[in-house]
């Protein structure tokens, strides 16, 4: 009978806009290239793979730019399952740049620790490809594929330090919970497909328009689907993997996870909410509201107690995730949809810059401290003033202090929330405000170590920072400062009408 169904559907080959998928093609080619190169270069010259990966990322950035300047602003393929619009392009660019920075971070780290370099970069590149795809996916299937595409390599990267028990543990935890979450999500998707009869988000959106008369199935389905990505963005209570994984995984990978894959999660979330179920806001708004509130609070409180800097950053990135969720919690209310989307994107961009920068500093600094303990950064300013200042900048930005990037991110989040202007909005705004103060508790604690404490065991030899790290640092710090002082530069990426259309303005 399946044949009969197939018979009903006439086969016409889809028209493919090669320009639109040029980035993905470049990346795919790059992956193959690196595998080949890795086969043929000698162990001593494996660094070439790193350089190549970097180049591939940048090369993939080229078509993104050409697409951005090209006149056709929305390109749709596979009848709407794969869309390249400004939203997608912005985030593709974000993923590629983030990936490039991660490569820079990884270079010495991977060289010095005994890792398989070629595979490492291959996996990294694969994961980035998955994200880039995620940005354009507008269909349950493609979203799912993209999700796995970016997750599976990440699982392996997390466990990349083969002989390190912590690393294994990190990988396994990440893996098991990840697949479990995506399994749950899939169940939700299946139900979604069941009630709407389509996997295409826009159609699902149109089917779910009727408000009020929801079957429990829809609610269940939406919840489960959202959980899948709540896991990716490590929103409380789906965050439990994050601290352990971040701590255990190689630091560059942690940076990658905490920035890129989190961003990917948000991209999917935004796509689902804005395109998939705009009219179902009665379901997801309260759900996300609670998640946002709990996430930023719990993240902060736990971060206060951490002694390991990476673990602390894990919790901090959790609470930052809460802030990114905050505008989504009211995205359906009033005309907050536009500002909310804008806030999320701006926040993602800024967050990528400052968090990567933070990890860069940590990596650079721990080359001398050789430890992840916060106390080991004591007196950093005295013997490595540059690193000290940079770390201060990134921390301050994370804490949201003007005129650094972080503040404009928080600002636009608050602005979006208050645009909604109902009681829930004010409530979460106040919660956010208080949390942003609490957050300084642990950011300031590190600053204090860096500036006001003496160096432990009198370690005061100047730090030598490899060029790749310097590059990474300069990119991120430039971003952080630029976004903060001239927010106009990124705010314009935010105003995207084509996604918010479903809310009817």
């Amino acid at each position, binding site marked *: 009978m399946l044949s009969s169904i197939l018979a009903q559907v006439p086969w016409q080959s889809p028209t493919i806009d090669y320009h639109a998928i040029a980035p993905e093609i470049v990346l795919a080619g790059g992956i193959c290239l690196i595998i080949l190169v890795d086969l043929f270069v000698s162990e001593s010259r494996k660094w070439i793979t790193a350089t190549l990966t970097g180049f591939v990322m940048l090369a993939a950035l080229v078509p993104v730019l050409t697409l951005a300047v090209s006149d056709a602003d929305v390109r749709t393929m596979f009848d709407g399952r794969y869309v390249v619009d400004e939203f997608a392009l912005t985030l593709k660019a974000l993923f590629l740049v983030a990936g490039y920075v991660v490569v820079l971070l990884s270079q010495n780290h991977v060289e010095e620790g005994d890792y398989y370099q070629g595979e490492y970069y291959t996996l990294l590149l694969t994961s980035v490809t998955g994200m880039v795809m995620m940005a354009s996916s507008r269909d349950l299937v493609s979203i799912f594929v993209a999700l796995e595409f970016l997750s599976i390599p990440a699982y392996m990267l997390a466990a990349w330090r083969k002989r390190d028990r912590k690393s294994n543990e990190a990988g396994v935890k990440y893996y098991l919970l990840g697949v479990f979450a995506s399994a749950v999500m899939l169940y939700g998707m299946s139900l979604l497909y069941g009630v709407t009869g389509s996997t295409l988000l826009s159609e699902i959106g149109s089917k779910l328009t009727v408000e009020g008369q929801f079957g429990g199935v829809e609610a269940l389905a939406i919840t489960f689907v959202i959980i899948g990505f709540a896991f990716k963005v490590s929103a409380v209570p789906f965050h439990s993997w994050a601290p352990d994984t971040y701590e255990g995984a190689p630091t560059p990978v942690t940076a990658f996870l905490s920035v890129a894959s989190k961003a990917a999660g948000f991209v999917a979330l935004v796509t689902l909410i804005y395109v998939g179920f705009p009219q179902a806001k009665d379901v997801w708004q309260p759900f996300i509201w609670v998640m946002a509130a709990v996430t930023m609070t719990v993240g902060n409180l736990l971060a206060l107690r951490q002694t390991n800097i990476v673990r602390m950053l894990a919790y901090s990135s959790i609470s930052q995730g809460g802030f990114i969720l905050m505008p989504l919690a009211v995205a359906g209310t009033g005309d907050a949809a536009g500002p909310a989307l*804008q806030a999320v994107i701006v926040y993602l961009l800024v967050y990528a810059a400052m968090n990567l920068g933070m990890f860069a500093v940590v990596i650079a600094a721990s080359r001398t401290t050789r430890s992840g303990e916060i106390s080991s950064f004591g007196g950093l300013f005295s013997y490595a003033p540059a690193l000290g200042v940079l770390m201060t900048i990134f921390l301050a930005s994370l804490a949201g*202090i*003007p005129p650094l990037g972080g503040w404009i991110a928080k600002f636009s989040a608050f602005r979006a929330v208050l645009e909604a202007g109902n009681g829930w909005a004010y409530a979460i705004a106040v919660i956010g405000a208080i949390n942003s103060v609490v957050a300084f508790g642990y950011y300031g604690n590190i600053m204090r170590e860096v500036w006001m404490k003496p160096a432990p065991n009198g370690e005061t030899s100047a730090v030598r920072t490899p060029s790749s790290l310097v590059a990474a640092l300069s990119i991120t710090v430039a971003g952080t400062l630029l976004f903060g002082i001239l927010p106009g530069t990124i705010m314009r990426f935010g105003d995207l009408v084509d996604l918010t259309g479903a809310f009817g303005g």
Partner: protein
Amino acid sequence: MDVLRDQNWVLSVGTFLPLVGVLVMLFIPKAEEELSKLVALVTAVATLGVGVYTLTQFDFDQADKLQFFADAEWIKVISSNYTIGLDGMSLPLYFLSMVVTVLVMVYSWNHIPSPGNPKAFLILMLILQTGMAGTFIAQDLILFFVFFEVVLLPMYFMIGVWGGEQRQYASLKFFLYTMFGSALMLVAFIALFFKVRGALPEGVEASFSIPQLAEYGGLLGRSAQIWIFGGMFVGFAVKVPMFPFHTWLPDAHTQAPTQGSVILAAILLKLGTYGFVRIAIPILPEAAKEWAPWIGLLSVIGIIYGALGCLAQTDMKRLIAFSSVAHMGFVMLGISTLTPMGFNAAIFGMVAHGLITGMLFFVAGSVKERYHTLEIARLGGMLKQMPKLGWILGFCAMASLGLPGLAGFWGEFPAILSAYSPAVGLSEEVFRTFMVIAALGTVFAAAYLLWLFQRTAFGEPKPEFAGGDHGHDHGHGHGAHGDDGHDDDLHDVNIFEWIAWTPFLIAIVVFGVYPQLMFKVIDPAVQVALKAFGG
């Protein structure tokens, strides 16, 4: 609103020049201390030069208008612009910030607190200067907020790195308090923006511009105004600091290095009060009337409370810090009357308090440097060992307790007067009660300051410090012979201190003798700010 736009580059230059200096200093090797001091000083002086030029170009006949007004696109999406301007209310504080920075730089020339590293110290100070100046010229809420926050980190590090024993606790406390305040303040700003945008008449484009908000803020509903005002109130009150939010101040002041305390007292506290007179009250008149009695109440509580706190202190610097609480109480009392007289008094009081308390902290710093302690009980006979320093302390004490003919009086006396007849719609009985309590406060002020002076400056030096035959030798001990160095630490005021202090002292006298200098600048602007209250 009509503004004067000519020469609108002046303010930007004056504000951001210090950052240029910072950039230069970044390339000076840490070892070259003299050089970095020099660069910093030159930058500060140059900035002051711009400030003086601003002063000369300022049209005093139109002090009610915003001058050097510039309005450039900044963050279009959130309709916030780079709007700056200067009027009679901000001019004194703007200029004061520049002067103070220069003098503090001079003082720092040979007073870099441990652990040294003048480069970083001075860079922070320059950044601080930019933040302070910017806050006073910003005419856009978001811009104001940015500058308002910029001052935080430098001060945090100044206290935390170069401060006293408790510095880390104090600095973190200072930071968290202010963060908390400004977070709520930001929320209030944004809420205000949306509410006003909703109330705007056709064809007016919403923006964060303060003048515009002041024009249309009155359109808001009362409850909305009250809530928004509440948010701002917390933000500014923490900075002032007003009574329940004041506990960061003594710690911060006590722990901060001298320069930090001076800047904190002279300028940073003013950001809060300035916020009230520039933003909260003109934009939200209705709410202001609702809040005024409570603000007044907190102010007088602060006056008495601060005074009691002073009486209880055993540490000179901490005493001065508490006196700030009391003095800012007078300022806030003047503001809470919502009358032009009260506002004038308040702004005058801000400047006067800046000069006087700043000066007191300078003295405290020098005392600490000489005696290595600020325990009042251990001090004494300062007039004998360093008469000049002692008399300067006495002078500042007198100025601080509001002696007519010195600057302090013109902040206190009109503030108390204005409380007798507050703005229309405020309960006279309540405010007259405040008036009496505030007057009582002046007595307390006399008490703790003179008591301080008596215990530290009068009497015989304590044996532990009485070097040589200072004890009962009546022949010496006066005038220049006071410091015939029996103890190398106990030298009288040195040249850098003289350079740094003289302008303060002169200003205290000049403004005390001829307050019109400032009032005639402030008054017109205040009239504008209060037009919602019928003058």
